[in-house]
Structure formats: C-alpha cells, structure tokens
C-alpha cells in the first residue's frame, strides 16, 4: 500500500518531484486508465485523456489540498478530463452526448480492443443510454466495486443522491437487457 502522505510531500518538493511522479504513475496508471476507459470507451481516446490527467496532476500538485485523499483528487481530475473530452468530441461532431455514446457503443463490435461477447455488448449499449451521473455511478459501483463514500468524494455528490442514481441505473439496465435478450 502506497504512503500517500509521504508521496504528496515528495511531489511537492522540487528535488524529489520527478522520482515521486514516476512512483505515482506506476501506482495509479492502471486504475485511472480503466476508470477513464469506461467513460470514453475507445482505447486511443483513453490514452489521450490519461496522459492529460497525469500532466494536470504534475502541474497542479502544489495546489493539492491535503485534507482530501490523493486518490480521490486524481480520480476527480480523470473524471473531469474524460467528461470534457467526450463533450468536446460530441460538439465537434455536432451531436448531443447521448447520440455520441450510442455511436461509440455501436462501434464496439469492430473495436479490436473489445473482447466482449454479445451480452456484454448489450450491457455497454444499455450503459450508453444512461444519463451521465448514472453512467458514472454504475461503472464505479458495479465494475470497480467502489463504496458510496469513495464515489461521493470523487463526484462531490451526496451518498443519498448516488444511491438513487445507482438504483435508477440498474433498473434501466435490467429493463434494457430483458428487452434485448430472449
């Protein structure tokens, strides 16, 4: 388990910043990658967002408030970067975000970095139809097994609100799967 307090101290010290930054990347790259990947779906886009996230972390570490957890702070940056990215992509294509997600989910079948079977494809299509907050909560809770407290700190939303979002999300997904399978 990484000592976050010591790592932050090293990151905020110019003489140890580079070594500490390498440690930070090594420890968090995969977790942040998969978090971003579930939001932006495509590998190449995820790579862009992940790089931007780490660069933002590198340049903003001085302003990191030690009251919150480093892990939550980085997740928040990654989430914001990913959402900004997809909004920008949708805007570039002159489509709304729901249409953009549907498009991305429909292109998964031909994605070489998608190994899912038919039912997993249906699940991804169901997730694509969810509103943003529900989509985020579902991915973080269902796939990553995160606790509501952790999600609350990252998304800066109340636990009650998150529970309601998750409830609506699973109901909608259940309904979608039932309607799209035998």
């Amino acid at each position, binding site marked *: 388990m990484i000592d976050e307090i010591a790592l932050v101290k090293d990151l905020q010290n110019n003489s140890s910043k580079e070594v500490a930054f390498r440690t930070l990347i090594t420890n968090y790259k995969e977790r942040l990658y998969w978090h971003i990947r579930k939001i932006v779906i495509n590998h190449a886009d995820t790579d862009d967002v992940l790089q931007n996230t780490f660069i933002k972390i590198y340049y903003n570490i001085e302003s990191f408030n030690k009251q919150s957890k480093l892990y939550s702070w980085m997740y928040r940056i990654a989430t914001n970067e990913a959402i900004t990215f997809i909004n920008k992509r949708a805007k570039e294509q002159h489509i709304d975000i729901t249409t953009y997600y549907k498009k991305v989910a429909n292109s998964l079948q031909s994605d070489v970095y998608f190994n899912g079977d038919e039912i*997993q494809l249906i699940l991804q299509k169901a997730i694509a139809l969810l509103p943003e907050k529900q989509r985020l909560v579902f991915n973080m809770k269902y796939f990553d097994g995160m606790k509501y407290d952790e999600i609350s700190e990252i998304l800066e939303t109340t636990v009650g609100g998150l529970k309601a979002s998750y409830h609506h999300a*699973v109901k909608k997904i259940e309904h979608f799967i039932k309607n799209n399978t035998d």
Partner: protein
Amino acid sequence: MNKESLHSEQFIEQKVNKKQPFSVPKGYFENFDNTIYKKTKEQNLPKTSALKVSDTYFKNLEDRIISKLPKNKKTLKVVRFKKYVLNTIPFAAAAAILLFIGITTNNFKNNSGIDLDSLTESDFEYWLETNPINTNDIAIVLNQNILDETPFYFTQIEDEIIEEFVNTNNNSFLINELDE
C-alpha cells in the same frame, strides 16, 4: 430501494459476468511511464527563446521602417470597425444587434434613448464575439425586399471601389470561402 437495486444488480450479474470486456495494446502499461515522463519533460522546456538581437537593433527601428514606406502614394483609408459593420450588414440585422445589446448589457438598462450612434465599438465587438452572425438569424430578420430598402445597389458599384475595399479590409474570409 436497496432491495430492488440488489435484485436488479443480481439479474445483471447473472446475465453478464463482471469480466472486463475491454483490452489494451500489448506493452501499453509498460511503456506508459516513459510516454508521460517525456511529455512532462517537453513541457518543462524553457518558454523563453535563446535567439538574440544586437543591442542596437531596436534603436531607430521606427525611422528605418518609415523610411521604407512608399512616398507620395495614395493614403490607404482605414475603415473603422463600427462603420464597416453599419455599412455591411443590413439595417434589420443592425436592429437585431441593437435589441440584443440593449437587452443583455447593463449599459442600457435605464437608457431609453438607444440608437446606433450611442453604441461603442466594443459593444459591437462584444456582440460579434458572443454571437457570431448566423445566416439563419439574418434570414429571419431580413425582409424579402431588403435590397430595395438599403443603399446596396450592387450593379452600381464601380470596380475602383471594390478594389479599394479589397485593399483596405481584411479579406482572408473571402479566401477561406473560396477554398470551401
């Protein structure tokens, strides 16, 4: 609500396993550290240029430039932005700008005597920055007989006037349109 959520969650788990359906290119995570490290290194490069000029370069630079200007040439007319806008866009569209600025800025909140002359150039610039003129918007406010109501009689514009307009105005937008 929790029970219901749990029930739906179990249904999804039964139907779809939690196995990650996404994959990454081979060696992606192994090489990621170096990619990002390189990027931060690039951004750490000094932003100031190492290029230098001689100490005397900027001395008398104004005189050197002015001495190269052509003598006895016809002075180019500078068309003021506000005048350009007023001459270029139809009166109906100008009225729309006036209405917009009147509604959205505090400057005119208590001023009932708004006219085009009371607008500053920055008002126009602000309006154009925040509301790029959309052809549809213009079409809505344009009357069909707008050409009869405005001083635009294109057939009467002489070549010399067009040439002067092209020479004195930023015409890059015309080139862009041609490219399209």
